[in-house]
């Protein structure tokens, strides 16, 4: 236990510089007490996944398939949490990944 604070936004910028041009990805999320409803687990993890996908030239085939399947054959149903976690695992398996989450509680 230390007696210190931090600075989430500075960390994001520092890690951005560190990951630029390397096989590494950076994602972040800022929780907002006033936006609890829209910041559901699915939306938050979906946002992290979205940022990871944005870091790739193209959406990886397996992830594209999953998304298209759900969007088209499941009647446009949003991805379930378990699907998003699976896709996150998949896409983070090939590169170093930073995830910065502010105000987790």
């Amino acid at each position, binding site marked *: 236990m*230390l007696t210190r604070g931090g600075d*989430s936004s*500075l960390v994001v910028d520092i890690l*951005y510089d560190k990951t630029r041009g390397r096989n590494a990805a950076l994602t972040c999320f800022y929780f907002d007490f006033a936006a609890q409803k829209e910041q559901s687990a699915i939306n938050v993890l979906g946002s992290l996944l979205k940022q990871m996908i944005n870091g790739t030239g193209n959406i990886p085939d397996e992830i594209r398939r999953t998304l298209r399947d759900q969007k088209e054959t499941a009647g446009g149903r949003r991805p379930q949490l378990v699907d998003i976690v699976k896709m996150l695992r998949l896409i983070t398996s090939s590169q170093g990944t930073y995830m910065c989450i502010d*105000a987790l509680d």
Partner: protein
Amino acid sequence: MRTQASWCVGMVTPGNPRFCLARQAFLPLPRTSSTHDSQKLQLFNRGSNKQSKMSQYTIKDNTNCFNTTNSINVQNNLTISHDRPELLAWLSPLDPGLRHCDIRERRAKDVGEWFIQTGEFRRWSGLSEEGEGDKRVLFCSGNPGVGKTFIR
């Protein structure tokens, strides 16, 4: 002001995402007008003939900010396939990059560097060569308003 923080540090390898978690409330901020449907996204088309042409949007007044529709680590010149924006928008409506841009412009300059220099952060992030361990989570906590998100 006295704050408390607890830490876990670790290294990053493929398949093991590094998490930097800040706990407890951050400084209250006015809500920005950044609803996702009004966001201006900066999209570039590299011109591959296999890709569809996309309209180009720009982030007004935020040219120094990273762009979450593109990635943070691959900022510009993405190749965009035809269904990519559609799939991504459907995946999640949230865009924390806009929040980051807002904070970045408002935070006090040259504050918080000490945190980047700490051994805990350097080891966790891999900025330090020594002691890259197997822990993947860096956890920071502190009282509300002490500047965990940023100090202005």
